[in-house]
């Protein structure tokens, strides 16, 4: 398996009234062809800002350093050096994204089919009209939308939440990208519908050999979709490894805490993590989790720990590892 997407020390800085903050701080990760990486984090962890950086959609004024390389074809592309003109080919054509709430990402006054056709034409402007239409219907069919021809004629509000998310997936994949970023794609859905969408994404990933970056706050969901898991806290990756290892043998106290705080069907002693996620404007000088950590040592206060090996292909950013 070759890497489709790789970031090295990717850092995003944003200006705020109280100075520059780093919602993404020195993030290095890799996604291979056909692989799913689950990116787990709570609100403010930087997981969404990371995905926006990978899509070239950062807010104006953002400062970026580090590298993100997309090797979807023979010539690797340095994403952070792309011009807006070049981004137009890459975005949707090589790397695409789906969002939490399909209702706000679909155009409410445009038929579903026309929206997908637009996405195809943006990348293949010379294609014949009939061919574009055929591809749009194919895209809907691939997303397992029943009766794609009649659904293509409908508007987003006529579709259920699950069908809207399928339409979003169809649109995202219509121009044949190799990497798909899914940002909380099932959070707004009922569990029975969520299950179907997770199955669909899993099948498409295998069939199309997609690199899938699945962003979620839900550890149960990540257990279903991801082969590898990266956990983010205050802008940094604090643990990364094979999904099973990270979820059953977590090495970082934050990952351990998240697991103990996640409700499951077995009634157990739910143990919350004390305190709150730190503000990016007031990060502690050492480990960002140190103020909430019950295992803290004196050196946690002064220095940000490195990502250390914690097992086979398993790393954690903690002095206890």
């Amino acid at each position, binding site marked *: 398996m070759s890497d489709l997407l790789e970031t090295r020390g990717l850092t995003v800085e944003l200006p705020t009234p109280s100075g520059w903050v780093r919602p993404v701080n020195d993030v290095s990760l890799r996604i291979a062809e056909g692989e799913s990486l689950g990116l787990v984090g*709570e*609100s403010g962890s930087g997981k969404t800002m990371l995905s926006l950086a990978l899509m070239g959609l950062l807010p104006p004024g953002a400062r970026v350093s580090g590298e993100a390389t997309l090797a979807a074809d023979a010539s690797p592309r340095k994403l952070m050096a792309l011009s807006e003109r070049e981004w137009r080919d890459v975005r949707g054509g090589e790397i695409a994204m789906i969002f939490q709430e399909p209702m706000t990402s679909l155009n409410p006054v445009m038929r579903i089919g026309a929206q997908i056709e637009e996405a195809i034409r943006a990348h293949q402007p010379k294609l014949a009209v009939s061919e574009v239409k055929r591809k749009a219907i194919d895209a809907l069919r691939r997303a397992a939308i029943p009766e794609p021809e009649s659904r293509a004629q409908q508007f987003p509000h006529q579709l259920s*939440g699950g069908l809207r998310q399928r339409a979003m997936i169809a649109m995202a994949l219509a121009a044949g990208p190799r990497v798909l970023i899914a940002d909380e794609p099932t959070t707004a859905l*009922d*569990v*029975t519908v*969520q*299950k179907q969408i*997770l199955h669909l994404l899993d099948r498409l990933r295998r069939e199309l050999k997609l690199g899938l970056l699945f962003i979620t*706050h*839900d*550890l*149960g*969901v990540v*257990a*279903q979709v991801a082969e590898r898991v990266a956990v983010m806290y205050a802008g940094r990756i604090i643990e990364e490894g094979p999904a*099973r290892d990270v*979820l*059953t*043998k977590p090495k970082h106290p934050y990952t351990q*805490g*998240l*697991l103990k*705080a*996640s*409700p*499951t*069907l*077995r*009634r157990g002693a*739910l*143990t*919350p*993590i*004390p305190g*709150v*996620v730190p503000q990016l404007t007031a990060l502690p000088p050492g480990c960002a989790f140190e103020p909430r950590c019950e295992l803290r040592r004196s050196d946690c206060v002064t220095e940000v720990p490195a990502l250390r090996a914690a097992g086979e292909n398993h790393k954690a950013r903690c002095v206890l590892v």
Partner: protein
Amino acid sequence: MEAILSARELRKTYRRGGSVFSQESDGARFTAVDGVSFEVARGETFAIVGESGCGKTTLARMLLRLIEPDSGQIYFTGENLLAARSEGLRALRRQMQMIFQDPFASLNPRMRVGEIVAEPLAIHEPGLTARKRKNTAVLMLARVGLGADALDRYPHEFSGGQRQRIGIARALILQPKLIVADEPVSALDVSVGAQVLLLLQELQREFSLTYIFISHSLPVVAQIATRIAVMRAGRFLEIGAAEVVLHHPRHDYTRDLLAAVPELPCA
């Protein structure tokens, strides 16, 4: 079991589609709650679980008479809630309070936290002095884990979890008997949601509260419920002790819901 609340054959329909101005009376109505009956025992946590659109929020709001049912009966502490008027209704209402899902939408952004938490006192006990109201608010805020410095600040200065604590303090300040909590942790992060669930359990013991807990999430309900009702299309499909519903469900739909829950691998 001593019932603090009993609901019989509650029903609520809404007009389907059309604008508020259209005068179509073709009888096309949507049944949100379709003949629901149950009893809630004093001190228990009765959970109502269902997917979006099943009618659980409409039902919750009818129990507090925030929505009037089309038909049915509600008895609260033995009194006929739907027949209560003015002072009688007001006296019943102070015993039942609500905690909402969205801590961003349910607190008035232009009111200071002290005013928000003390407002129920100002309404229900107008004889109290401002100082007494403030002192009670400080005690209540402290009980939910917020300092007295919160009094003069505005909701936007607080995180989601802290705002939910403010909402809980407001609901508890009148020392109600029954709390209806509509998705109280679903807008919160995992680590914060667990804090709020534990706080709700502590407060229940301390103030002998009865909870009606509305949620779409079986894992959340599994942490807190003594009994669970599974709702779909306006009806209760299954109702029983939490352990039975979660681990030996009788209805196929309950099994489907349980099977769809993404579970963590066992260590």
